[in-house]
């Protein structure tokens, strides 16, 4: 496995399945009396967040702490960054403090990649601009596998297995072969969509992007997925529909006339959800704009995995941190 996790494209199929299987095992820690493992004792993980985030930062923090690592939270607000310190100088400071891993979120695409050249620790991309968010894609894939693989509810030929008590065992080692995933909304600004397309296609799923023409990236033809502008026809043949947040803060121009029109064409309400096959699930990376891309009753329905995704975020990030930091540093014997 690559020493850093910058892009979902860094992961081979086997790497990704190993992360999912490791997370599957770590999920059992949640149910124990003592929800902590000693594995990363004495290691330091720095959360370097240049952009607001609750879910991802707390998720990484919880993951690192469950593995007994020391966690330093560093947010741009209230730090020397506010005084004009550059990313490089901040990186050198962290290096001097002995950070074994840096989890970075940055508004500029490519910042995590730059960081790898300045520090000796591992770098985990927790979202860079409109580029990528690989751990979100991993937790989404984990949630899909948990809900649809090895439960008998799967779709494609390879996605069916006997249901049973040992469903966790059935899932082990398996990818998302044949699963049909539709990702809907602001694809243009979405690092979640990009990472998901790359990871899910590596895992054998068929991904379809649906967005208004103004919110579809020009280069989408080079991505390993299909793309379309019509939602209803895609819903009927989807095992998973993932709604993306309309990212008002990144919209510098008018991408659609009104919120009402967007909602009517691309929002998921109860009527649209009825078009989905019975086993299909509804996902959202959060935070949600209730009433815009997703209706409140859909978000709260039994088919929605939104809360499950958050819980899975911790175990998947534990798996990533363990696999990156738990062993001997490569070439450092």
């Amino acid at each position, binding site marked *: 496995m690559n020493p850093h996790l910058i892009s979902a494209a860094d992961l081979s199929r086997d790497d990704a399945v190993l992360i999912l299987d*490791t997370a599957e*095992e770590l999920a059992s820690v949640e149910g124990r*009396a003592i929800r902590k*493992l*000693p594995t990363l004792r004495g290691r330091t993980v720095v959360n370097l967040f240049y952009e607001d985030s609750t879910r991802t930062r707390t998720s990484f923090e919880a993951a690192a702490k469950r593995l007994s690592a020391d966690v330093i939270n560093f947010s741009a607000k209230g730090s020397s960054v506010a005084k004009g310190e550059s990313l490089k100088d901040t990186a050198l400071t962290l290096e001097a403090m002995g950070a074994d891993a840096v989890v970075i979120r940055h508004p500029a695409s490519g910042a995590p990649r730059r960081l790898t050249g300045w520090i000796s620790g591992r770098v985990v991309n927790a979202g860079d601009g409109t580029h990528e968010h690989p751990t979100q894609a991993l937790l989404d894939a984990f949630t899909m596998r948990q809900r649809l693989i090895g439960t008998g509810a799967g779709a494609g030929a390879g996605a069916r297995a006997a249901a049973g008590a040992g469903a966790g065992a059935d899932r082990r080692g398996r990818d998302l072969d044949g699963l049909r995933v539709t990702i809907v909304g602001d694809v243009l600004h979405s690092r979640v969509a990009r990472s998901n397309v790359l990871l899910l296609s590596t895992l054998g799923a068929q991904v379809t992007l649906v967005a208004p023409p103004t919110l579809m990236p020009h280069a989408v033809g080079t991505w390993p997925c299909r793309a379309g502008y019509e939602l209803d026809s895609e819903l009927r043949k989807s095992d998973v529909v993932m709604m993306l947040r309309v990212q008002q803060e990144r919209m510098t121009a008018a991408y659609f006339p009104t919120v009402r029109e967007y909602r009517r064409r691309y929002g998921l309400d109860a009527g649209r959800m009825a078009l989905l096959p019975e086993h299909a699930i509804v996902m959202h990376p959060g935070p949600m704009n209730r009433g815009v891309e997703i209706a409140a009753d859909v978000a709260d329905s039994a088919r929605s995995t939104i809360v499950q995704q958050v819980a899975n975020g911790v175990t998947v990030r534990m798996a990533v941190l*363990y696999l990156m930091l738990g*062993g*001997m540093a490569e070439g450092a*014997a």
Partner: protein
Amino acid sequence: MCAMRPEPVHEPGPNGPGKSGGPGKTSGPGDSALLGGSGGSGGSKLDSTGWKAVLTPEEIRRALSRIAHEILERTHGGEGIVLLGIPTRGVHLASRLAARIGEFEGTPAPVGSLDVTMHRDDLRLRPARALQRTQVPPDGVDGKTVVLVDDVLFSGRTIRAALDALNDLGRPRAVQLAVLVDRGHRELPIRADYVGKNLPTAHREKVRVLLTETDGEDLVLLGEGRA
């Protein structure tokens, strides 16, 4: 990124990776031809690859039966016991012991598995390893007599890790240890309560346990380390 915990070729100390090629992977020593008829004397026949059979399938069977009887004796008929195997081969041995206890007493003993990877003291000496399953019987371990089951007892470090892992799962009334082979060379104050065979070895020698479930046949082999 490699898989599996280091195979029973338990070598002590910082020996780094590269100890792959565990048992059951190569053909040579596994060829049961070298044993002739089973039930023999646990002979000292040596095959061309330098591995010597020290326990035959029949002897393994008898050893497990004896251990099952000893467990029942020591725990007053298996009162409140839970067998926890340490992956990979310890899990299969634990299931066999549980079945054997079932034959003798009518009710099989609760059995599970306990992965110790996250508690090992040599994590930093090797690349990160894939985790194996931890599965505790539904009644848990609180107040129970837990019998840890492993294939080979060597340095004792795996068992130390297992005790730590067990500590996070609950508070057993007592913890005991059953192993198929005790090869000596302990590095920690740990001893087994039930031993299939005490096997005097040189430190550099290797012990390989083959089981039908993982390797297609039952056999314990002793060989020289790589020259």
